[in-house]
Structure formats: structure tokens, C-alpha cells
């Protein structure tokens, strides 16, 4: 039995039944990671020793007839934005290089309690800021379908490691599309749950009102299995939802007869790649064949999604990232010796060989942050600081909050007419590494179809719906009302029973 060929649901069943041990399963994935990750760079840390130890303990408990958790023996890769007590948590930033949190994120704690085996921490865009995974301080992740292309971001490492079968399941986080977009570009299934469904405690904050943790896996059924474990109320996250967690994996059977799926005219705007459009149209046809009906709807403020997002997220980030000041933990510049870091965008100030600092303290702050943060993080901190400043707040941040309310209302209106909203995940398939790095605005547009979900606080799922002639996956996105995860998962599962796109594997990593 080749563990890498099994779904997460099958792995858990096989270990439970004794057809395979947790150690065998973990070892198989770790071996693949050891063989493949040199060229993909999906992991920032592979914890072979710790993972095998955990797996062996699970096997011993099973042998002794002791009860096992719901995910017993399932290898899981965790995005490096989630705190892990025994492993470094860096957010792919030099700022947190070597940082070991003294606690587990709520999601990590729930995975451990369910006897999942954490195999390592995955690469990402620095502090989850980016859509290509090229903003990692530890090198970009390569797309397993074409190593010259980006896997998407910011959860690119999590997407790539599932696509290359280095882990059956990975945990990602999604602030503006960071689970769905890389899942789409890597041909896997990724779910961004409703805001508050999964606790944010221990997720290193990027934009607190938008961040949400979710599962990334081969299939909707695998996502359902993992979501059952990681979702739920956390009294130590004030924004966590109290609603009871359904048994998602037991709610997949019901057919889609009568399901209304919305199709948004704005999604067919200029810039949509024809091959992506073809895949999306074919996906609607599959849903219709399954008994659903497709209805044209409007999301009139969707076009303001990207600018709204690029105000709210940087504003929150500028404050969330203030704590990385070199005073208490993380990177601290050596006093007086550090040379002036390059300003964001690579433009060196004309005069700037030496800069005046108000005090040694201010110098320490400036140098530590100058050295510790990458250019995209600096850019967003500056954007947010500017937009929150006296005299600009009303024109930018306050205005963005108003537009956000309008976008939320669009969704409420839409969900009065349809059950789910379909569409592309991103306008193009995976782009070349370096293709957009010189043009921040072009890079921000990769979030075009995904940011509104976060602004509205609802859930979305992305999954493969076809391939380009060049062999790159095309993703389809479904968005649902608040707490409609059962429906998102059921619709995707039904789609995946009728198609096999999600079962295709990249040749390079076979």
C-alpha cells in the first residue's frame, strides 16, 4: 500500500484498521519530502524525528488498545504562520528567524489532541503577505506542476506539499485568498471557512479582521475530515464563533438537486484567461448535470474589493507588526554597526549613507525592522501607517470600512437569491516565478476573485476544474453564506465524484 496514493480519509481508516502503521505512513511521506523538497522548497522545517516519535507513540497506544483521536496517524503539514511549541515559527521572515513560541496555536493543539502527526512547517510569503510565495525570506516555493512557476500564495508551501504528495493534508491561512488561490494554482482543494469558525489564537496575525485558518487537501472529503477537528469555539479568541461544529464528513451524501448556484457577470471581466474561462464554464455544466441550477447574479461592489482590501489589511498589519521591534524577541540589529537597510522597493535614498536617529532606542527600532522585514512587508506597513494617520484616516481607512459594509451587503443580497456563488479562483493559471515581482499592483490583482470573501467574512472553497493545454491546473471557487461549510463541502464533494481533476498528479514529482 502506497500511503501517498491514499486520501486522508483512507489513511485514517487504514491506520485504525491496522492495515498500515502510523510510522509506515509518516515515513512514506517524510521520504517523499526528503526526495522532492530540495527542488520545491515547500517546507521551512521538516521534523522527521518528532513526527516519527509521535507516530510510534500512536502505534503503541493502538497496540495497547487505548483510544485514539479522530486523525490518528494522519501526517499534517502546518503553515509557518501557526505557532508550534516545539518547532520554530518564523512566518518566513528574517524577523522571526529561530523564534520558538512557548505555546501551540489552537489549531495545532486540536490536531495534536486528535493524534495527527505534524511533519513540518511550510513555506509562505513573509507574514502571509503575497500571492506567489516569492516573498519568503527563505526562498520561493516552486509549483510542482511546473517548477519554473509560482505556486501562488501566501500558503504556497502548504499547497505545493499537498500537490506533490509530501503530506496528505496541510493547514493554511487565508486573509485575502491565501488558501484558495494557491490551492487553485496547485490543483488541490482548499477551504477558507467562515471568519471565526477556526480559532485565530496562535496564528501570527496579518490582518486580524480577515485572517482565517483552513484545511488544504486533495479533496473536499479530506478537508471535511480535518475541519471537524480544527473548527470550534475558542473562549480565548474573542472573535471565535460559538455555533456548534457539524460532522462535516457525514453531511456529504445529499444530492445537489435544487441547489442554486450564482454566476457573477463581474467575474468575466477583462483579463480572464480563456482557458480558465473554459474550465469555469465546464464546471458550471458539471453542477447542472448534478441537479443544480445556475443563475446570473450581481455583486455590484465586488470591483472595489481589491482597493478596499489593500487599505484594511495593511492598516491592521501596520499595527499587528509593530510588536516586532527587536526589544523583546526576534531580530535585533547590533548597536551602531548595522548599515542602513534598503528602503522598500529597492530605491536607495540619494543622500542616505548615514541617517540621523533621535536616540539609540529609535536607531535600534529602525535598524532591527529595516533588516528584519522584507520589501513587501515594509510596503504594506507604510501603506497602513499612512492610511491610519491623522488627516488620512477618514479618506482611506474609514472609507474602506464603509465599502466593506457594502460588499458584505452585496453578499447578503446575493445569498437571498442563490445558495452558493461560483466562479474562477484567479484570472490566470500559475504564472512564472519573477513574472510579477517587479510590479506590485499586478501582483495585488491575483487576489481579484478572492478578497471579497474575506471582506464579507463568509466561506469559500477552491478546487481543480480542469487543466490548461500546457498542463497547469485551473481552479473553481464556490462561496457560501456564513457557516455554510457543510454545503460548500458537499457541493465540492459531489463535483469530485463526477470528475477526476483532483486526482491528477504532477509528473515531475511522481
Amino acid at each position, binding site marked *: 500500500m502506497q500511503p501517498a496514493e491514499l486520501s486522508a480519509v483512507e489513511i485514517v481508516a487504514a491506520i485504525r484498521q491496522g492495515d498500515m502503521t502510523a510510522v509506515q505512513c509518516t515515513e512514506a511521506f517524510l521520504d517523499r519530502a526528503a526526495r522532492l523538497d530540495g527542488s520545491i522548497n515547500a517546507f521551512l522545517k521538516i521534523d522527521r524525528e518528532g513526527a516519527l516519535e509521535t507516530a510510534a507513540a500512536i502505534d503503541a497506544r493502538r497496540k495497547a488498545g487505548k483510544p485514539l483521536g479522530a486523525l490518528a496517524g494522519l501526517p499534517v503539514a502546518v503553515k509557518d504562520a*501557526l*505557532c508550534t511549541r516545539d518547532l520554530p*515559527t518564523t*512566518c518566513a521572515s528574517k524577523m*522571526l528567524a529561530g*523564534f520558538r*513560541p*512557548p*505555546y501551540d*496555536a489552537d489549531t495545532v493543539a486540536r490536531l495534536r489532541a486528535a493524534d495527527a502527526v505534524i511533519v513540518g512547517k511550510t513555506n509562505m510569503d513573509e507574514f502571509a503577505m503575497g500571492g506567489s510565495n516569492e516573498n519568503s525570506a527563505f526562498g520561493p516555493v516552486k509549483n510542482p506542476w511546473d517548477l519554473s512557476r509560482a505556486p501562488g500564495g501566501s500558503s504556497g508551501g502548504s499547497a505545493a506539499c499537498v500537490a506533490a504528495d509530501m503530506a496528505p493534508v496541510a493547514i493554511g491561512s487565508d486573509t485575502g485568498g491565501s488558501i484558495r488561490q494557491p490551492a487553485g494554482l496547485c490543483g488541490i482543494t482548499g477551504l477558507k471557512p467562515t471568519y471565526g469558525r477556526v480559532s*485565530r*489564537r*496562535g*496564528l*501570527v*496575525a496579518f*490582518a*486580524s*479582521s480577515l485572517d482565517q485558518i483552513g484545511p488544504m487537501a486533495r479533496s473536499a472529503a479530506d478537508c471535511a475530515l480535518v475541519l471537524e477537528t480544527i473548527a470550534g469555539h475558542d*473562549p*480565548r*479568541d*474573542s*472573535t471565535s464563533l460559538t455555533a456548534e461544529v457539524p460532522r462535516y464528513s457525514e453531511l456529504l451524501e445529499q444530492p445537489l438537486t435544487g441547489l442554486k448556484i450564482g454566476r457573477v457577470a463581474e467575474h468575466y471581466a477583462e483579463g480572464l484567461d480563456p482557458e480558465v474561462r473554459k474550465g469555469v464554464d465546464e464546471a458550471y455544466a458539471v453542477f447542472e448535470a448534478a441537479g443544480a441550477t445556475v443563475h446570473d447574479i450581481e455583486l455590484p461592489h465586488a470591483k472595489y474589493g481589491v482597493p478596499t482590501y489593500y487599505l484594511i489589511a495593511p*492598516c*491592521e498589519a*501596520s*499595527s499587528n*507588526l*509593530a*510588536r516586532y*521591534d527587536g*526589544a*523583546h*524577541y526576534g531580530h535585533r540589529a547590533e548597536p551602531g554597526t548595522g548599515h542602513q537597510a534598503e528602503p522598500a522597493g529597492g530605491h536607495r535614498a540619494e543622500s542616505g549613507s548615514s541617517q540621523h536617529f*533621535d536616540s539609540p*532606542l529609535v536607531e535600534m*527600532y529602525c535598524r532591527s525592522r529595516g533588516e528584519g522585514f522584507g520589501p513587501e512587508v515594509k510596503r504594506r506597513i507604510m501603506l497602513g*501607517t499612512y492610511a*491610519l*494617520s*491623522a488627516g488620512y*484616516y477618514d479618506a482611506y*481607512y474609514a472609507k474602506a470600512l464603509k465599502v466593506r459594509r457594502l460588499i458584505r451587503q452585496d453578499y447578503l443580497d446575493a445569498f437571498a437569491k442563490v445558495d452558493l456563488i461560483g466562479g474562477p479562483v484567479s484570472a490566470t493559471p500559475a504564472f512564472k516565478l519573477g513574472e510579477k515581482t517587479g510590479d506590485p499592483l499586478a501582483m495585488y490583482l491575483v487576489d481579484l476573485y478572492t478578497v471579497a470573501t474575506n471582506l464579507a467574512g463568509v466561506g469559500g472553497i477552491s478546487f481543480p476544474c480542469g487543466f490548461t493545454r500546457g498542463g497547469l491546473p485551473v481552479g473553481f471557487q464556490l462561496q457560501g453564506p456564513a457557516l455554510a461549510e457543510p454545503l460548500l463541502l458537499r457541493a465540492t464533494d459531489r463535483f469530485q465524484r463526477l470528475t477526476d481533476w483532483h486526482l491528477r498528479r504532477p509528473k515531475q514529482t511522481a
Partner: protein
Amino acid sequence: MTKPAAPTAEPFTTVIGLEVHVQLQTKTKLFCGCSTTFGAPPNTQVCPVCLGLPGSLPVMNREAFSLAIKAALALECRIAPFTKWDRKNYFYPDLPKGYQISQFDLPFSSDGWLEVVDPKGAFSRKVGVIRVHLEEDAGKSMHDEAAGTADTRIDLNRAGTPLCEIVSQPDLRSPQEARAWLNELKLLLVYLGVSDCNMQEGSLRVDANVNLHIPRPDGSLAKTPIVEIKNMNSFRSVERALAYETARQYDEWQATGAELGTTPKQTRGWDDPAGVTRAQRHKEESSDYRYFPDPDLVPVTVSEEQIAAAKALMGTPPTVLRTTLAEKWKISAYDADVLVNQGRELVGYFEDVATRVGEGKVASNWLQQDVLRTLNERGETIDEFPIRPDALADLIRRVQNGDFDTSRGREIFAEVLTSGRSVADVVASLGIAAVGQDELIALCKELIAANPKIVADVQGGKEQAAAGLIGQAKKKNPNVNPAKVRQMCVDLIKALELPTRTPEA
């Protein structure tokens, strides 16, 4: 209600507003479960939340919120039905998150007042309260001034402690009023159990804003630039700093004519040993704190029912207690003021004693003259005072009965205090026993016989001469009641004048 300030010789009006931070008396911090106990070794009462570690999230302490509501209600504030948390962003090493969680444009309460009345009638001032809001405290920076090192040590035990910020209207008109108002505010907050208001431990901190309104000959008003005074460590310092600043501003105005609006608001620090305020370095780029709503916390809604419940649990505030105490126990307003100003525990003690002896005035006298003096000498609180109300009441009752006089009572008080024995015990061991009527007559007759001069004086109409017998009586029997001795002697002497009549005993 507001009476004009006592007339002064000053050719200006002093305008003072206060900004008071009080630490709420909660067991745990505002957004995490760490203890707020004062004095623990540095950085031992911390967790990922108050250390601002990546991924940590705040959760509001409900107890802190209800204590703050209590304070605001006692200050007659309007409680907002909807309030939120904002981040105040600035960099400082004792602020580990790089922002302080505070309240900006929607504080949980506003528009209240607190009146202060000088018991001697010098002033009476109803001071407006602009707002009361909740926020978390920062840590403590200890700058090591040792030559050459200039190290700063950070203790984050205090980081995240709940603070109530109370901002007054600029309604105070003199340094004395400011001090009296602070005393009244402190008393109120301590009565409510909202804060211990211990300035030494930093549970109460005051900043003062002050300027002068100076009438010009043409009838217009010159206003001096507003100065914020910081770094005052006691209410006495507040009074002294304001008095200094008032004089300084008048001098400066006379020298420069600088007025409000022509110069930026200045911050000056109070140097207590030197007795002067000094200009502090202007904060770089003034203060753009980039306030915005904290996305990690949810807004708080407060219902009418919650407000009613908080009111019901509030207890009697000092202002009301002063009146009820004076009326109930028939003591003067001044006495009630003294007792109430000592705190709720002392009032409880007083009422216990007064109930047992059945009279307020005598209990109030004993408390003010003996108990308070002793507490001061011993540096004790009333809760620690060894003579409990039943014992003091026992002693007072014996004096009222005429068992012995007040000065003898004080000796017994002192002996009970030092020995820790009961009043009855001390009375017995000192051989103090009530002197019987026969014994008293015999003693007085003896004294009359031995003091013909005094007898003659009394017979000559100088009744007060009988007082000369009291000392001798006490020498013969220390337990006699001087008043009774005096009365008995006078009666006996008068009976001598009318030998045909028997003395009326």
C-alpha cells in the same frame, strides 16, 4: 450649588482640569489571566498575551468592565449602550505589542460630575467629568542612571493591568480645590471597592492641566498657554505643583505676554525635592497615535438591566453617607465628614460602637480623639486595630455609668491596647471598682473635716473651691468619680450651713 471660590488677592482666575488614572482592583489583568498583585519579582506575572507574543489574542475581563461601570455610575456618568476598543499605536519598550488597547471615540461612559465641599465652608465645587474610559496599563521602564551604562530594565508585570482614565472638565479654580477634589475622588473609588488608589504603588496617577484667565483693564480676558503637569507622586505634590505653576505662569505672562494658541501645549514635569516644574522634551512628531478599532476584540453592549444591577450593588457613596450618618446619630456635619473621610471600614466600626452604647456623639468623640490618634501613631488601619467595637463600647458604657471618669477611661483604653486584655480584666487588675454611696459620703466627710479653708470658701459662695478636694479624694481612693466627689462635698458643706436640716443625699 457652586459657590464662588473664596476671594483671593490673585488678579486672575486659575483654571484646572485633572486627568486621573486609577488601577482597578481586579485579581487578573484586563485581557489575560495574569495576576495583578503588586510587588512580585520582575516579569513573573506575564503570559503570551501581555507579553505581546505573536499569535496571542486578548479576551476582555468582565470583572474589570463591571468595576469601571460602578466607578462611572458613582461619577454620575452616562453609560454608553455600545462601546468598543481601540488601538493606540506607539513604540516604546515597555509596550510590548507596539500599541495600547484603549478607548478612543466611543468611551464606555461620559458626562458626569463629582462635587467637593470643603467642610469648613471655604469652597464648594461641582466638577464635570468629561469621560471615563478603560484601558490597559503599560509595563514599567527602570532607567539605570549609573554612569556610562544607561541601561533600561523593563518589568512587564504591570503590562495589561486594567486602568480607568477619568478626565475632568477644567472646573477647578485653585490648587486647594484640586487636592480636595482628588481626595473626594479617591474616597469614592475606595468606598466602591473600585481601586485601592495607592499612589505609592502607582494605582492612582494624576496629570493636571492648568492655565490662568487674567482680566485686562479693557474687560477682555488674557488666557495663558495650557500646561500639562506630570510626575506628581502625591496629592500634596499636585497642590504644590499647581501653586508653583500658577505663579510661574503669571510671571511668564507678565514677562512675555504669551497667550493660549500662540504657543503649543507644553508638558512640564514636577520636581518634588526642588519644588519646581520643568519643561519636558516635546514628544517627537507630537502624537499621532493612529487610533483604530481593535479587530481582535468585539464591541461591548451594556443594557439598562446591567446598569440597574450595577447601581443596586453599588452601596452608599460618601456624599450620601455624610448626611445619613449625621442625621442618624445626631452628630455634626463636621464630625460626619471626619468619620466618612476615614473610609467605609471606620464608619462601620463607628456605627457598631454607637449602636452598642446607644449614642452617636460619645462614640464619635472616642473615635476622633482616641481611636484615630492611636491609628495614626501606630500606622494601622481600623481593621488591624486591636480594640474591637464591643470592647470600646464596654469601656464607654462604664464611663457613662459613672464607674470612672473619662481620663481614667483613657488609662484603661491605653492598657487594653498594650496588654490586649479585656476591659473588665484591666478594670479589675487596676483595682478599679465602683465606689459605693456610703463609702463616698464617708470619704467626703473626712475631706471636709480636714479642709476648713475650702469649706469656708464654699460657704462664702465659691462653689468651684470644692474642686480642690478632688485631688485629695483621688489620692485616698483612685476609683472615685471626681464629679460625684465634687457634688457630694458641696452638698455636705451646704448641709453644714443648715444644721437643722438633714443633708439631701
